[in-house]
């Protein structure tokens, strides 16, 4: 057992075992005089597995609440019905076309709604589910509310199992790949995901369209099994039924989704001997599970053969815990170093930047130039507009006026992920890690841009995929080494100490390969000793990664020691800029901010 579907060395083996087991079961069933009862139950299980696992990609992995899965199933089912009845197309073609049609409609619905954050998708999918049902009820060529019959009967048992296994493999592979990590990052923290260069809209729409596509495939199998379908089979309750299976198994866990789809489909059949009572046992089970295991039966855990094997080995060899080599602190590891440019042009130029929120001018006419390779400080009292400035620089807020020129290119008005891709990375005042992911995964997420492969590679896993993933893991591990986090690379981020979380956030920002790093109060909450180490670390990072750093900090000792140039902000206006010495002696600064402390 392992948390999060991010390391899956043994997955191929698992899948093989699964296949072997299925073939064995299938052979048994065939030998058993083709017992249509068992075959029927297994077919329903297969369809439910496809529905639940595909919904997991949307709701569990990407964290977007869709409650209209039955609507997409209906699209697939009716596509197949019409194809089968009017054109007599074979099931394989119907499966593919139904999936494509449902996926395309998912894309159309997802595109406008997933640009927004929040529960808009839930409302939109709820609406869609109802609309599609009402449309089907009123269309003549779909048979209206009476439904449509005469779909070719296909003993879809084998093909259902094969499609179910393929669905699990594909969604599993997406889950552990770079695109999947991007989706998980969106679930964990959408803002942080944007700032490491993830186009959140793209990945949300991608997950939604893929999930809808598989719902369509499930609908196609359903239609061929039923031979007659009607709009009543795809009500809101059907969507909820799938959602219940997902939540019971554990939102985010593919293993859990499979487990609960099997359990909830088979259980009422096993309980047939208790007659009416079986319908009470089912909801009672849901209540009990939700009370005692609110995260679902498996939580977000995945069954991983590799983990089981290593656990066995550990038990056999009597060792406790994985043997990790202690990292020597001496000598920083060599990192891929970019060629240092001695260009005198500033890396960042900000001209007349202004923004106001509801009449309040948070930042007005702000100008700054940051030289390549420089350490630039930004100080000012609370509420002076420092973080707002960071938010404008990283695209979180669009400025009302002014220009931001980065590496000679204007970047104002770009989305956060585009800014990150351009080469600006940041940390947050209140740390925004992907809290429920491991330390290693936090950094791997940020390597998303450099992954060098897309969805197709993630699903097909050609040799290149392994090489790319290996490279990402190696790069991420090296980065963790630098920040003395490699011992804790498998720790869940939320369990790290405060200082370690700060370090991890910087490490994650560096994984984006920025040219400019924005640090928002990096020393906040650190003790003097940690601050001292941080100063060295920041300086070292600047040199080693050849970047420019702009930092907000209230700890004057840090700012004064580190920064060559310091800008002072007060009430959204830059009141002074100069060296540490100049700032310290400037009356305006003393009055506005430093006060008695430094004088």
């Amino acid at each position, binding site marked *: 057992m392992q948390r999060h579907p991010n390391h899956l060395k043994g997955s191929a083996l698992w899948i093989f075992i699964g296949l072997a087991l299925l073939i064995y079961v299938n052979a048994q069933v065939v030998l058993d*005089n*083709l*017992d*249509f*009862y068992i*075959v*029927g*139950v297994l*077919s*329903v299980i297969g369809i439910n597995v496809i529905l639940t696992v595909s919904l997991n990609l949307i709701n569990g992995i990407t964290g977007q609440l869709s409650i209209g899965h039955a609507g997409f199933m209906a699209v697939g089912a009716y596509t197949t019905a019409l194809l089968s009845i009017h054109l007599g197309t074979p099931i394989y073609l119907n499966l593919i076309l139904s999936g494509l049609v449902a996926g395309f409609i998912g894309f159309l619905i997802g595109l406008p709604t997933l640009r927004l954050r929040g529960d808009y998708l839930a409302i939109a999918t709820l609406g869609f589910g109802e609309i599609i*049902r*009402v449309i089907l*009820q*009123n269309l003549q060529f779909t048979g*209206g*509310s*009476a*439904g449509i*019959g*005469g779909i070719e*009967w296909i003993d879809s048992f084998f093909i259902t199992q094969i499609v179910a296994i393929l669905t699990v493999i594909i969604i599993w592979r997406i889950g552990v790949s770079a695109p999947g990590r991007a989706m998980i990052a969106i679930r964990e923290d959408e803002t942080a995901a944007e700032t490491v260069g993830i186009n959140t809209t793209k990945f949300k729409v991608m997950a939604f369209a893929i999930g809808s596509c598989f719902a369509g495939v499930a609908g196609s199998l*359903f239609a061929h*099994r*039923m*031979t*007659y379908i*009607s*709009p*009543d*089979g795809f009500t809101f309750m059907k969507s909820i039924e799938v959602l219940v299976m997902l939540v019971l198994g554990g939102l985010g866990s593919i293993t859990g989704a499979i487990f609960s789809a099997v359990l909830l489909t088979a259980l009422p*059949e096993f309980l*047939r001997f208790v*007659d*009416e009572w*079986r*319908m009470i046992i089912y909801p009672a089970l849901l209540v009990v599970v939700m009370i005692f295991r609110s995260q679902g039966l498996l939580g977000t855990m995945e069954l991983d053969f590799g983990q089981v094997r290593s656990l066995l080995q550990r038990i056999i060899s009597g060792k406790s815990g994985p043997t990790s080599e202690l990292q020597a602190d001496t000598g920083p590891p060599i990192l891929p170093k970019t060629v240092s440019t001695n260009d005198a042009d500033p890396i960042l130029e900000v001209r007349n930047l202004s923004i106001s929120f509801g009449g309040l001018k948070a930042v007005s006419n702000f100008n700054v130039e940051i030289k390549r390779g420089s350490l630039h400080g930004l100080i000012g009292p609370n509420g002076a507009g420092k973080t707002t400035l960071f938010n404008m620089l990283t695209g979180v807020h669009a400025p009302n006026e002014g220009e931001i020129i980065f590496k000679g290119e204007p970047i104002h008005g770009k989305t956060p992920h585009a800014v990150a891709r351009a080469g600006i990375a940041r940390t947050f005042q209140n740390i925004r890690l992907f809290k429920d992911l491991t330390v290693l995964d936090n950094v791997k997420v940020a390597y998303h841009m450099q992954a060098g492969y897309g969805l197709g590679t993630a699903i097909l896993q050609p040799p290149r995929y392994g090489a790319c993933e290996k490279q990402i893991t190696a790069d991420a591990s090296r980065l963790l080494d630098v920040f003395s986090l490699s011992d804790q690379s498998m720790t869940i981020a939320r369990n790290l100490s405060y200082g370690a979380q700060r370090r991890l956030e910087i490490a994650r920002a560096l994984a984006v390969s920025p040219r400019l790093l924005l640090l928002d109060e990096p020393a906040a909450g650190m003790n003097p000793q940690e601050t001292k180490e941080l100063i060295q670390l920041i300086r070292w990072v600047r040199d080693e990664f050849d970047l420019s750093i702009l930092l907000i900090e209230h700890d004057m000792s840090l700012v004064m020691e580190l920064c060559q140039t310091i800008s002072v902000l007060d009430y959204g206006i830059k009141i002074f800029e100069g060296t540490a010495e100049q700032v310290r002696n400037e009356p305006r600064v003393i009055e506005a901010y430093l006060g008695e402390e430094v004088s």
Partner: protein
Amino acid sequence: MKKYGVGIFVLVLLVFLSTVLVSAEPIKLGLVGPMTGPLAPYGEGVRDGALLAAAQINANGGIMGRQIEIIVLDNQANPQETITLVNRLIQRDNIVGLVGPVISATSSVAGPQVQRQRIPMITPTATAVGVTRVGDYVFRVCYLDDHQGLAGANYATNDLGAKKAGILYKAGDAYSVGLRDVFQEQFIAAGGEVIDVAYNAGDSDFSAQLTRLKNAEVEVVYSPFYYEDAVIALKQADSIGLDAVFIGADGWDAQELLDQAGLAAVNAVFTTHYSIDDQRPIVQTFLTDFQEQYGRFPIVLAALGYDAAALMINSIDRAQSTNAQEIRAAIASTQAFEGVTGQSISLDDNGDPIKNITIIRVIEVDGAAQFEYVTQVSY
């Protein structure tokens, strides 16, 4: 020949013995319907009616010297589950015939399964036209939505002399929309005028729709939906002073209609499957035996469940065989079968019954609403 004599004797003995042994086995029928969930009352009614038919025949020694066993499985009115259960009954329980399923959606998916595996099926209550069109192994004992809509329209035109009809129907509901279509077509064909208004599933206020019909001065309101909605419609029509005659369908045939709508239901008529006032012995025996057996009054679907099972058993008896093909042929050739829901039921080429439709009226007796048999119409 002589040297084979002993051998032949032993063989005949074996065959005879095996026949005796096999004959001791009951003839198995399957029944699939909703025994749990919101439609459970219908499923239970059909089940109890069917089991009563089998029990009456078993009490008289069964058929072909064998007892009848009906295996009942609950499908919760779910089509997907129905497929699994029908296949289970055929493959595992080796049934020779299927009674059911109850509602049209589940019967529509069961049909292709029995057809594929060549097991005859008689649905007691699935009224959607398409159900029996999937093949020659699928039959029913109830009339179709079409027939009922026609009967309703004909009664409105011929017996009530109506020229202007309102239709209140449930949007998106196959039963309601199906009946509306047929009624509308027939009524207009007879020279009438139709105003139709819809409500949605879950609506509990029809006053806006009924006011429209009142303002249009309709003479009858065709109301193809179940008694729960009929109670609301009748009460609200009463309160807004809409005095048109309500014409319901078999969904109205429930004691609850009288209990809940009370005098507001008086004068309403509806088409249904049989009348308890019918004095034929088969109807009265059914009513007596049912109440004796189950301690309650049968719902109308119980009579159909009874007839479906009785027709299936009767056909096996006529075929004198448990071979599914021969049973099918016997069912298909049914002529003038006497059932509770029809004095003379014959099956047409589609496997649908040719029988009369009963019309019932609600009257007031001593200040209470009561059903009264009006007439029987053919279609």
